[in-house]
């Protein structure tokens, strides 16, 4: 029973990670942009949701606001900053988006103050339900699984099945050439970047609802999102999904099982500390092992 619940938790955590990484899959995986400010867009989504939900009393309006605010921020960032960097070294993107993190974090703190905000779930989504088999599970976590799956499917269709997806990938390969063929890649990139930002914002609002909405909440997300995408192989939605689930499972099961396993060979107290130390290193060990064995990620094509 515990194991079943932990497996479900792993799945759920994986889906949550996928949601966090979904926007980055577009921007980084497909457009090839190293966007360190992804976590900031995630934070903007969460703050917008919390602020609007607090002002209007409606979680749903908050959701809509998170999409709109993050997409708008994304579009502005793309047009004001990122657009000038396509022709440059990737490293300039690193510096520029690092600068954006500083700006957005402190800007958010300036607007919303230093204290965490409050985001409450509508009653339809709160509480727990009893699953077949008698397992009690929070409704909202099931919602996250569902939204994650829907986003995955949508992204996959968008990238592999639509002309838009082909064009973005072409734009990443040779931006000048796709323009010369009559595709307005600049506008397309703005749209896709904004879409990626909106997804980040959505994740921020959803995940923020059960975590905390505060300045700095985006930073761990940033690293995890990159980990997930890179494990899966850059540019592959399927890879990101598998990567997310793998990381989710590893992390959850690592935390749940390692201390117990170690306790069989050492005293419980050090098993606890060592076990949880190992558990926190687990996803990085996973990433290193995968990339050393498969240098282009699980589903990556590019060398």
């Amino acid at each position: 029973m515990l194991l079943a619940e932990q497996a479900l938790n792993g799945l759920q955590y994986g889906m949550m990670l996928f949601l966090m990484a979904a926007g980055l899959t577009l921007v980084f995986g497909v457009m090839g942009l190293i966007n360190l400010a992804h976590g900031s867009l995630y934070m903007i989504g969460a703050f917008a949701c919390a602020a609007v939900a607090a002002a209007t009393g409606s979680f749903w309006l908050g959701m809509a606001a998170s999409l709109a605010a993050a997409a708008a921020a994304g579009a502005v960032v793309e047009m004001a900053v990122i657009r000038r960097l396509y022709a440059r070294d990737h490293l300039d993107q690193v510096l520029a988006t690092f600068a954006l993190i500083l700006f957005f974090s402190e800007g958010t703190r300036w607007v919303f103050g230093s204290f965490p905000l409050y985001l409450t779930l509508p009653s339809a989504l709160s509480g727990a339900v009893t699953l077949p088999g008698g397992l009690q599970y929070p409704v909202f976590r099931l919602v996250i699984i569902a939204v994650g799956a829907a986003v995955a499917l949508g992204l996959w269709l968008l990238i592999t099945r639509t002309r838009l997806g082909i064009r973005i990938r072409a734009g990443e390969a040779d931006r000048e050439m796709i323009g010369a063929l009559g595709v307005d890649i600049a506008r397309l990139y703005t749209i896709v970047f904004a879409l990626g930002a909106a997804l980040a914002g959505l994740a921020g609002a959803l995940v923020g609802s059960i975590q905390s909405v505060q300045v700095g909440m985006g930073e761990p997300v940033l690293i995890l999102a990159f980990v997930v995408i890179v494990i899966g192989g850059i540019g592959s939605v399927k890879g990101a999904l598998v990567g997310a689930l793998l990381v989710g499972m590893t992390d959850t099961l690592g935390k749940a099982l390692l201390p117990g396993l170690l306790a069989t060979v050492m005293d419980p107290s050090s098993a606890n500390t060592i076990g949880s130390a190992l558990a926190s290193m687990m996803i990085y060990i996973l990433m290193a092992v995968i990339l050393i064995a498969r240098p282009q990620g699980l589903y990556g094509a590019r060398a």
Partner: protein
Amino acid sequence: MTALLQIDRLTASYGSVQALFDLSLTLEEGQVVALMGRNGMGKTTTIRCITRLLPATGGSLRLAGQDVTRLSAPRVAQLGVGLVPEGRRCFAPLTVAENLLVAARPGPWDTARVCALFPRLAERMTQVARTLSGGEQQMLAIGRALMTNPRLLILDEATEGLAPVVRQEIWRGVRQLKADGLSILLVDKSLKEIATVADSAVIVERGATVWTGGIDGLTPELTDRYLGV
């Protein structure tokens, strides 16, 4: 009647290095014009200006009477300019089919017709362009430009790296396109073939037009002087 493409006294630079000094060229609807000159004289640069990949620093570019000197590259392409660039520049991570589809616009040219022109491509539809052989990539670049169904096709060394049979196939294709009423601007090193399709020729030397005239006017003296033949 206004010419399809009218270039007047065009100048352009790469950074601080000027590459075009005074380039003029006229291409009438339905014509095939050859752009000729030695290596490094400015042929590709001219084409980059026409397709708005390189900003002109002076002079004017008109497409069917419309001033396009300040338009964006996609706008010019949408007006009906199809480009087969120097060096192929296929989208490496995309498959052959995706490369063909990526910028396709409606018209007589579709995947089926391109495949009929290049059967080799039909066999390799799901292969990513990166792993195609050099010649296959060249075919793909031509097919990709045709798929945009242009009014004006620009071929910059489009036969480079192609096997002789295929090259002949391409020239046949070019004659066919011309017969269909398509206008073509081309750069190629095969004088013999150019002579059979081009209506007129423009010779560039150090970024300036030094000779313009009907293809019959291209005398051995001229080719010796400007092309080193």
